[in-house]
């Protein structure tokens, strides 16, 4: 089968979309609302091409044999220009305050097509801002109604964002239904082409951790950030920049830089212990709980599965606790004088640190969460020359992590680490359905079925399967975001499957470079157990937590004028 694009014959397969075929053959078609993670919504009408003189959206139109396609002409340019002007007429520009600041598709297209971005007044300028917990903000005055956020929210199995009538028009709003709530994965952020979604504190909060001058600022860096932070500075996807990041943070005046994978080694040890216990007591399946969006998903949508979540705290919470309770004492600091900041690929972590039950004697293990994007912005603002900075070394008061700890940043890492910690060889996984990989292993002479799941929509499928067949899987890792934390809602934008693959590749490289592979072989971690985590009480205080059924959280709505005030 073949089609003719701009006069040139090209091979195609049945069912392919015009855009796919054109891109593969090097023909440029401008796109705006198209995102390869989603079914084409075909709403923006920017990617129109001419087929036998008629304009069709290339993102969603299937090729037919012999089709003659023109990707550019004055008539197409005119249509794209006017549609862009109409899109800008519903988008209140706040370019300085936007996650797409430096790579905005809308602005690029505006330049490309000579668009008058203010041809029409912004009809949404009075639309409100919605605040979702401690994690997310949605400024509906920027929304261009492409509905990508609704699609990704649906794909995540959450369906919190929806369409509501507003006079003549519809608008995207958070659901008012009692049985719908945001679980803070933040995938709406990386799928919105208009920058309508952002993290809480995304712009105005980036200097907060440094505001209290008397405090010592300690940063701990999540595994998945090392292979993405470079993107903020134009480095190729998948570049591992651990050393540059450490030095850059020090330039900001950070006192200590710790590595979250060290915390992950504690999580691994505790979690594999719990797994063995649960296998013995036949109290399965067990779910991982490092991902706070997944935890909230279970707590809100599937509370019947709360007992299945491992009680082990997520790595940065454990490390935060160790810093404040153990490291502080050793070094002679007062824990109240420490400002522990987690550098995370995630916006749900902003919600996680607010959970009361994580407090240790009234003190939060982690004081602040900053995302990859936020730290990138702060470094740029502070004039740090990331590209040329000399590589530094982490401060590792509890030693260097194992490779397992670094692997936490990608889907499958937690499961592999926990299982590898109690077994001689690694489990071999095969993908059985989209986002679900399984392996069968033997532990204590029992056949144990492991499942690694990424993408909450896929996790929802697995939970439904478990409702019917509780024995289907025995140990399940879930990461809310596609690809795991490398695809997190706090990561650099854009994000798509290709980019996630590159990031994963970078992280695997970083994993392989670690001298120790298993958490239990990490002598320095074991030393902390001997030294500090020597009682069940201490372990429980630092390393374990609990979960509970939660009701719908309050969505605060603010008007435009107070938007920048909080």
């Amino acid at each position, binding site marked *: 089968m073949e089609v003719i694009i701009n006069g040139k014959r090209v091979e195609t397969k049945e069912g392919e979309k015009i855009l796919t075929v054109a891109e593969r053959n090097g023909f440029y078609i401008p796109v705006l609302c198209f995102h390869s993670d989603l079914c084409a919504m075909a709403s923006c009408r920017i990617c129109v091409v001419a087929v036998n003189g008629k304009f069709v959206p290339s993102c969603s139109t299937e090729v037919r044999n012999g089709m003659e396609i023109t990707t550019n002409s004055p008539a197409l340019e005119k*249509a794209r220009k006017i549609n862009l002007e*109409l899109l800008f007429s519903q988008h209140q520009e706040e370019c300085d305050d936007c996650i797409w600041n430096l790579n905005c598709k809308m602005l690029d297209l505006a330049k490309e097509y000579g668009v008058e971005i203010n041809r029409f007044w912004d009809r949404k300028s009075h639309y409100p801002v919605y605040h979702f917990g401690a994690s997310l903000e949605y400024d509906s005055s920027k929304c261009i109604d492409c509905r990508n956020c609704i699609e990704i929210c649906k794909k995540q199995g959450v369906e919190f964002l929806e369409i509501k009538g507003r006079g003549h*028009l519809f608008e995207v709003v958070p659901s008012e239904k009692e049985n719908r709530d945001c679980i803070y994965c933040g995938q709406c952020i990386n799928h919105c082409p208009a920058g309508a979604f952002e993290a809480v504190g995304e712009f105005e909060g980036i200097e907060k951790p440094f505001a209290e001058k008397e405090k010592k600022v300690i940063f701990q860096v999540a595994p998945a950030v090392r292979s993405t932070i470079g993107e903020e500075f134009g480095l190729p996807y998948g570049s591992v920049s651990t050393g540059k990041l450490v030095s850059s943070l020090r330039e900001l005046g950070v006192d200590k830089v710790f590595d979250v994978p060290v915390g992950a080694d504690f999580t691994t040890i505790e979690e594999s212990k719990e797994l063995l216990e649960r296998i013995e007591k036949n109290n399965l399946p067990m779910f991982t709980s490092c991902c706070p969006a997944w935890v909230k998903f279970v707590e809100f949508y599937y509370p019947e599965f709360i007992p299945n979540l491992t009680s082990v705290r997520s790595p940065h919470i454990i490390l935060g606790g160790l810093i404040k309770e153990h490291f502080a004492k050793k070094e002679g600091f007062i824990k109240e004088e420490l400002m522990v900041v987690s550098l995370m690929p995630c916006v749900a972590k902003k919600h996680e640190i607010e959970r009361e039950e994580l407090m240790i004697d009234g003190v939060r293990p982690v004081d602040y969460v900053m995302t990859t994007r936020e730290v990138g912005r702060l470094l740029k603002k502070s004039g740090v020359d990331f590209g040329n900075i000399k590589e530094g070394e982490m401060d590792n008061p509890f030693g260097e992590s194992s490779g397992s700890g670094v692997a936490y940043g990608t889907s499958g890492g937690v499961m592999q680490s926990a299982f590898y910690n109690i077994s001689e060889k690694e489990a071999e996984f095969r993908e059985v359905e989209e986002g679900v990989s399984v392996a069968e292993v033997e532990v204590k002479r029992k056949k144990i079925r492991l499942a690694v799941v990424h993408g909450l929509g896929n996790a929802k499928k697995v939970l439904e399967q478990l409702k019917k067949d509780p024995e289907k899987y025995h140990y399940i890792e879930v990461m809310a975001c596609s690809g795991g934390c490398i695809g997190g809602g706090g990561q650099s934008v854009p994000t798509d499957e290709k980019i996630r693959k590159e990031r994963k590749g970078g992280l695997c490289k970083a994993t392989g470079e670690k001298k120790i592979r298993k958490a239990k072989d990490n002598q320095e971690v074991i030393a902390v157990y001997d030294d500090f985590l020597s009682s069940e009480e201490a372990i429980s205080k630092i390393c374990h937590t609990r979960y509970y059924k939660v009701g719908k959280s309050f969505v605060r709505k603010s008007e435009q004028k107070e938007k920048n005030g909080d």
Partner: protein
Amino acid sequence: MVDIILKLKEKQLLGRSGSMFPVGEKWEVVRSIPSEKKYVVCNASEGEIDTFKDYYLLKNYPEVVIDGILIAMDTLGAQKGYIYLNKDYYQEFFPALKSVAGERIEIVEKKGGYIGGEETAVIEAIEGNPPEPRIKPPFPSEKGLWGCSTLVNNVETFYFVSKIKKDDYRESRFYSIGGDAPNRGVFEFPESITIKDLLEKTDNSPSFDYFLQVGGGACGEVMLENEINRKIDGLGSVIIYDREKTDINLLMKKWVDFLLVGNCDKCTPCREGLYRIMEMIEKGNYDEIEDMFYVMEETSLCPLGKVAVTPFKTLLKKIWK
């Protein structure tokens, strides 16, 4: 038994929703496509302003319409049929239709506004989804309800299918005449009749200065007295406006309000284009309206955005000077 599809082709029956699509051809596609199940949908969503020919048929000839649906189901091998009724018709006709329809035909109430009557939106609604148009192709005849080949035809089309089967078809169609017409109503006349003759024969030739809207009270084309020596293509609906009594701006406002509420707001040109047209009407300044027409006609997702341009374009050209 003579093949009904051959007869439909022979009689050149065209879809009476206004699409003018050859009915026999559509049936042929549904019949020939391998599909696990097949469905037949009677679209009775009649949503155009001041248009009521389907209402007339449902009220007076429900058994003929249902006979047409059953003929389609039997011919195409469809186990199940649907009648998709707009809200008012559902209220009024549900009991009567239910008693004739039998077990194989389900009666469904229309969801949403005007766009809810577009054939792929009808399919979405019957499936239980929001009534928004799908991207075509695939057409419903290829992939319709639950991915199965589905025939969607209008009420009047099914009426004439039954007539053709009984060799009782005289190349006629139904015209609804409304607005300031002296003798409002639904009338059956040959397809070839000119608008002029139609008005005369139905005692609807206005004695006042007038203009017409042909093809529906929202998306129909505005026509002047000197244009009526021609037959009607598209929807069989004529609305007469008394020129003196009609406030042009108010009329356009009525259209744009109807369309803005009735569209699905999914694609940029139809959503934003109509919004800006509304603004232009409010300001009475049409300097930039051509650009709106351009993107709506060329780049809208479904037929609504394309035809929504017609009333404004023709009115501004012919009457607004």
